[in-house]
């Protein structure tokens, strides 16, 4: 009798141990399925390669044996950079395909369209590639977390640098008249803490043909520092115009528009020389990282799994860091693959070192801090390449 009771008890213990594996829809004993929604078509289709990149990364993970014995399936969907389409695709992934979570999506307007939806469904909406500051709001939106540094953090970094190294300067600001421009502007001015340093701040609308009037007003204000908060096309126009009208300043250019091929080359490399911007990633083409282990690993990944990836597009290496972090969280989750556990792990990263991030930049989150990366390094364009200078500046 005693024996059978022990056996029963033992059986129960064993059974409960086996049942300790806890799954939400999208996870099972042999599969983890998640989704990513990126613009594979339309005006922003160049960025669509991040989706391909994340899927390719997990092909590599699966070839190594998967995560805790499970195969990872990534469902990559196209939103054409259209918010309505984004919502449709998110519903499809969550309700029809039943993914465990959605991660790595691109774009502010598109992710805004599903911000509320994902939080209502309580499905993790993780590691977004967008710099809007609104994503860091765990109190109202506990299921959404970005990945890249916010525009606000970047704006504060420029302000801090200007305050420290050129406190007597007068600043002229050109900004795009929308959330993107205002995120930068507000954080920048707040960090300056001395509004009299701003000689003029003028805006433009994306519907305009040229920004020549704005540049003329800025030059007329007598500013000797120019902060260029513009999307690529207008940033290029502004850099060229500043050169043409001989407005000689120290120029700061937001990271959104610091691509050499899409902005600096059209503007003219001579006019672009000396511009200061920020970076938080290791550029594979930078000779300083020729021997770097991260860059070597990325190059091998790129040649084997991600031949479409370009070493000239930052999102094609940033996605590698994103995918690595997703892998880390899934590995940590073990057999508890629930929405809640994933969010808990994502919001308790401490000094986590993801590959391709610059030395000195690590990922730190907490239940109150949903901003994984809040440090960047300044860099200056020398006429040919961007060169990092100074220490990493952290603003968290």
């Amino acid at each position, binding site marked *: 009798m005693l024996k059978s009771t022990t056996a029963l008890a033992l059986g129960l213990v064993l059974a409960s141990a086996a049942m300790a594996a806890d799954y939400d829809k999208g996870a099972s004993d042999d599969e983890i399925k998640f989704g990513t929604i990126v613009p594979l078509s339309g005006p922003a*289709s160049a960025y669509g390669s991040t989706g391909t990149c994340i899927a390719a990364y997990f092909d590599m993970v699966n070839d190594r044996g998967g995560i805790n014995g499970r195969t990872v399936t990534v469902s990559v969907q196209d939103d054409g950079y259209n918010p309505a389409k984004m919502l449709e695709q998110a519903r499809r992934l969550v309700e029809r395909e039943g993914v465990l979570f959605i991660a790595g999506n691109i774009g502010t307007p598109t992710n805004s369209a599903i911000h509320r939806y994902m939080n209502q469904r309580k499905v993790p909406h993780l590691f977004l590639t967008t710099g809007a500051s609104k994503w860091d709001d765990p109190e109202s939106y506990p299921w959404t977390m970005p990945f890249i540094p916010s525009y606000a953090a970047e704006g504060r970094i420029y302000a801090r640098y200007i305050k420290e190294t050129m406190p007597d300067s007068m600043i002229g600001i050109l900004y795009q008249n929308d959330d993107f421009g205002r995120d930068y502007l507000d954080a920048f001015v707040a960090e300056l803490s001395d509004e009299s340093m701003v000689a003029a701040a003028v805006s433009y609308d994306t519907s305009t043909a040229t920004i020549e*009037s704005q540049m003329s007003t800025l030059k007329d204000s007598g500013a000797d520092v120019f902060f260029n908060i513009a999307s690529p096309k207008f940033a290029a126009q502004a850099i060229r115009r500043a050169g043409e009208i001989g407005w000689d300043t120290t120029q700061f250019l937001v990271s959104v528009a610091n691509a050499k091929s899409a902005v600096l080359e059209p503007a003219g490399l001579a006019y672009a020389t000396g511009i200061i911007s920020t970076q938080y990633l290791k550029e594979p083409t930078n000779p300083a990282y020729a021997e770097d282990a991260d860059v070597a690993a990325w190059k091998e990944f790129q040649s084997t799994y991600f031949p479409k990836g370009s070493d000239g597009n930052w999102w094609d290496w940033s996605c590698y860091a994103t995918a690595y972090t997703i892998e880390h969280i899934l590995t940590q989750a073990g057999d508890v693959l629930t929405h809640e556990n994933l969010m808990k792990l994502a919001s308790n990263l401490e000094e986590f070192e993801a590959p391709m991030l610059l030395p000195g930049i690590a990922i730190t989150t907490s239940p109150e801090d949903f901003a994984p990366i809040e440090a960047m390094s300044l860099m200056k364009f020398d006429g040919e390449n961007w060169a990092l200078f100074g220490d990493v500046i952290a603003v968290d």
Partner: protein
Amino acid sequence: MTFFLEQLIIGLSSGGIYAIMALALVMIYKSTGHVNLAQGEMAVFSTFIAWTLVQTGMPLWPAILLTVAVSFVGAIVLERVVVRPFAEADDLVVVAVFVGLFLSIHSLAGAIWNYEVKPFPSAFSDGSVSLMVDLSIRTHTLGSLVTTGAVLTAVWIFFRYTQLGLALRAAADNRESSRLVGINVSLMLALGWGLAAGIGAVAGVMIAPVTFLDPGMGLAPLIFALAGALLGGITSPFGAALGGLIVGVLEAMISAYVPYGIEFRELIALMLILSVLLVRPAGLFGEIVARRV
């Protein structure tokens, strides 16, 4: 004073862009009776063709001439295949067709040439002419103003003094009667599209060096060109071109001298235009087209 002159030059630089685009709108309006909303996108598409030719190593001027010819033929084909089936349809249907054309051409350009901005060489020279201390004007701006003038003169002479121009106007004005007096209306419509696209191509290669070339390049110039054309009178080439220049200069002056003008310049400019149109519905130099119903 220098500041004022600088604003004037900025205004002329964008006004010149609107003026030449307005001429393309006048061309198609006078020969078909419609405002082609896809005119800006067609101009952008043509400019991409010119860009591609230049990339293959062709010198710029021959590339522009070839582009104008290709655009002329392309637009005739487009009119035949896409627009002609709706010739007898309601005006609203025609507007829908134009919107469809706008979207299709825009996406097609994006799919072929992607959305990254591309520098486009000036047909004149990349430098600028110094007028006085601290004041210079781009050679390109001067060149495009001269080009606008030349196109304007050509269009004016064409409609005013040539048999063909008269036939085009007649075909747009009254198809039935034109047919009865022996005008080949079908040919005239095709010709109107071809000529408008040719002018549009010239407009495109004048705009691109200023704004950079990308699929979205045509929209702003089209909106302000249309405003300019309506202000000056869309039936008058001279009025439309002048209207375009006025819109450009107005924008620049409002930005410079009106408080918060930079934020509201488009609004203020368009409101001023609206007020003029309330007094003169046909525009400053336009004639009222009367139709027998």
